């Protein structure tokens, strides 16, 4: 191009100044938006970007979408035809809403989670998983990317159905909270189930079991879908009555806290399945377990606050009940988690050893968060101990501040219950761990096998005494006997229902804690060697590399919003 004299250029630009500037600002706004969008996609999880692209080209996805859309139309036309001209007066909304919800819940609870599972399984089958795992994507990013892709699908289905749902809102009999609740249930259900499906997909990497697992997963999802459907229908029919009660919202808070922490736990567990062996895969899981324990404490505190806050409440029986519920939930939870944690591999990778806590006052506590079966055992025991101490102290405190009397189990029974439950967990996990340790000297015991060993140990402790007593002529009709000592189910339920004397608690309180302490002591040596491990120094090469990365780090935009024009 030949050069244009500056004056000519100025004249040319000043011919229609107003329109040009308007256009320019419009254009600038568009460019700005586009740059932001591009920047967002730039920062989006690569798996999300890839799978969204794939989904848009996928026939299966488009067909499902079309079917959903088609059903929405059919329901709309049939519904309007049935209701007819009364549509403006009759409360046709709930019926239509229920129909749309049904259409929505099928893809959301069945298609979306199963697709998430399949997309992980397909990575295995098509051999792309290896390629993916040696990229610099972290294990958490891989799981999040898969989940985000499921989420995008979910949003697409939602957007197909949401105009219809908005339409029911125009009809009578539907309020905004109901619609909101319904969508929340469907979405949270879909995300939660997808997370679960991903964990199963990540854990079940053996191809031969894929078919069995797929079938089991479909059944599970179908069951969950039916449950969510009933929940949704319940919300549509009685929702507006429920929202007025404070308990409903409290309950919603409980459910949400359970949902969030369980989701976190599942996510961490799925990431652990995907991660390389030398990575620390345990500590994130342990953090979420503590979060769940904190939630349990919170719920119980909330329950106490709500009940005792009401006038005329009596604390004794109620507080004992709270202690018993807490001890039951807590010991069940920590047995389950402990059964998994004690199956961890005892050898700590050098990578983990590099990040061990350094020698300071907090070390004993922080060390329990370390990977390793011994630390895991002690972690479960310590948490359960804390939980029981807190709940018992609360009971004692409530009792001391007055309000005695009332029915329910005595405070004494609650004390015994807590001590026995603690003893059972400590003893079963401890002896199970000893068995696993012994077996590991000879054979390879993976985590699943270790978990099974704990379960078998517990089941035989429940089953064997029960069977013996039931088949013995003398004992058959004598109710609870000390033969049931190893049987936590019978012992604890007897204690909770019939009180201290029915189980000879004065005898058990000598035996059960002793057994627990023996288990603890027998484990102590191996636990100690694990906890005494010192941090090892970081290799020089790593420090060099850190310094290099630090020097080379681009001082670029930190969020899409501070991205400026093209660097090129």
């Amino acid at each position, binding site marked *: 191009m030949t050069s244009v004299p500056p004056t000519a250029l100025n004249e040319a630009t000043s011919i229609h100044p107003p329109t040009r500037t308007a256009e320019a600002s419009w254009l600038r706004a568009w460019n700005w938006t586009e740059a932001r969008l591009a920047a967002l996609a730039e920062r989006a999880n690569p798996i999300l970007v890839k799978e969204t692209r794939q989904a848009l080209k996928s026939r299966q996805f488009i067909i499902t979408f079309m079917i959903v859309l088609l059903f929405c139309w059919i329901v709309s036309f049939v519904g309007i035809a049935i209701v007819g001209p009364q549509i403006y007066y009759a409360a046709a909304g709930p019926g239509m809403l229920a129909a749309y919800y049904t259409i929505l819940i099928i893809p959301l609870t069945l298609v979306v989670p199963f697709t998430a599972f399949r997309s992980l399984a397909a990575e295995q089958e098509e051999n792309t998983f290896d*390629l993916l795992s*040696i990229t610099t994507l972290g294990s958490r990013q891989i799981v999040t990317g898969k989940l985000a892709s499921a989420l995008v699908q979910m949003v697409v289905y939602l957007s197909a159905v949401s105009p219809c749902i908005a339409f029911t809102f125009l009809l009578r009999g539907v309020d905004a909270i109901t619609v909101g609740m319904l969508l929340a249930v469907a979405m949270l259900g879909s995300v939660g189930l997808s997370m679960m499906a991903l964990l199963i997909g990540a854990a079940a990497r053996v191809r031969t079991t894929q078919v069995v697992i797929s079938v089991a997963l479909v059944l599970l999802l179908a069951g969950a879908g039916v449950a969510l459907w009933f929940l949704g229908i319940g919300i549509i029919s009685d929702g507006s009555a429920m929202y007025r009660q404070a308990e409903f919202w409290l309950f919603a808070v409980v459910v949400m806290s359970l949902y969030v922490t369980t989701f976190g736990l599942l996510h961490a567990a799925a990431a652990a399945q995907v991660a390389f062996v030398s990575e620390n895969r345990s500590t994130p899981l342990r953090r979420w377990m503590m979060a769940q324990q904190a939630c349990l404490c919170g719920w119980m505190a909330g329950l106490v606050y709500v009940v005792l806050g009401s006038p005329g409440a009596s604390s004794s029986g109620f507080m004992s009940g709270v202690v018993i519920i807490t001890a039951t939930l807590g010991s069940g939870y920590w047995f389950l988690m402990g059964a998994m944690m004690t199956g961890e591999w005892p050898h700590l990778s050098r990578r983990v050893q*590099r990040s061990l806590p350094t020698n300071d006052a907090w070390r004993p506590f922080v060390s329990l968060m370390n990977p390793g079966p011994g630390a895991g055992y002690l972690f479960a025991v310590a948490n359960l101990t804390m939980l029981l101490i807190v709940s018992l102290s609360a009971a004692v405190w409530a009792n001391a501040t007055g309000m005695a009397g009332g029915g329910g189990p005595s405070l004494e029974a609650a004390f015994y219950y807590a001590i026995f439950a603690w003893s059972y967990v400590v003893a079963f996990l401890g002896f199970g761990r000893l068995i696993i340790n012994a077996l590991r000297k000879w054979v390879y015991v993976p985590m699943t096998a270790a978990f099974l060993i704990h379960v078998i140990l517990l089941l035989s402790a429940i089953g064997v005494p029960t069977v013996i007593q039931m088949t013995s002529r003398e004992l058959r009709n004598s109710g609870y006997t000390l033969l049931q000592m190893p049987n936590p189910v019978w012992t604890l339920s007897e204690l909770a229902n019939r009180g201290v004397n029915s189980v000879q608690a004065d005898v058990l309180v000598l035996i059960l804690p002793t057994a627990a302490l023996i288990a603890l002591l027998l484990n102590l040596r191996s636990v100690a060697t694990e906890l005494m491990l010192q941090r090892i120094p970081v290799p020089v090469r790593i420090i060099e590399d850190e310094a290099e990365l630090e020097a080379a780090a681009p001082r670029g935009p930190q969020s899409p919003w501070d991205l400026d024009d093209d660097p090129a």
Partner: protein
Amino acid sequence: MYMPRRPLIEVRELHRYFGPTKAVVDMSFEVYAGEVFGYIGPNGAGKTTSMRIISTLDEPTYGDALVDGFSVVDDPDRVRRRLGFMPDYFGTYQNMNVVEYLDFFARAYGLRSYERKRAIEYAMEFTLLEQLAEKPINGLSKGMKQRLALGRTMIHDPAVLILDEPAAGLDPRARIELREMIGRLAADGKSVLISSHILTELAEMCHRVGIIEQGQLLAVGTVEEISNQTETRSEVRLRVLGEPDGMMQYLRVRDDVSDIAFRNGQVILTHAGGPAEQAALLRQIIEANFQVVEFASKTKSLEDVFMHVTEGRVQ
């Protein structure tokens, strides 16, 4: 060839057992920058297993491997930034074309906007895939897939490339293209570890080779070094004026000559000894007054070296 003393791949006493199967046993070697190292061994020798360990896909039972100084066991994340692995299978995705495939892996390696665009362009140019950018990957031929796999492997410009049987199933033309590409990568200062069970495939491509069988590394070095290390035997062909019987008689009494035969007017024999001994043999034949008009010694092929090195060492 430029060879700084720091190896990019350092394998140290690597072992990998699968139950009773000893897939890799005490393997140690180094690969330097700018070097193409060939891994030769029959099927089931442990090539893939050891390559997967170096590529942070598997963990060793004992021992370690360092990539650019980082342990594949302790710092897989740092190793992954510096290493590209091309397995012996392709790894396909549904509903995806060539650019999207490369774009996904570029993103997965953390390449952003312009950096990524440049990386994809370079990879496509390097692997001659520019014309196929919009082609669905499921419709690619074996050779194209192999090039795409190489493009994917080098997308984040790794210093170390591990290629597992890249030439398997390629036609001769594609094989030559591949060899050129690998040469260019090495000239760029990258370390390339490449495996094959077909020896001739690697002979011209590699600076050094490692011969591996039953999980053990039997010999490491240039083809020449290995043939010198081992007790060498080469095939010598002689043509003399007149009847060969006299000379065959002369040869039969020598210790360093065996398998003497007469075919197509040539005396063919197997000679134990290196080039110097061969020169001595020729001189002595001439000094014994045989009229030699032709003396040819066949330089040993990799195949021969391989057969020789592996024979009887492991059972």
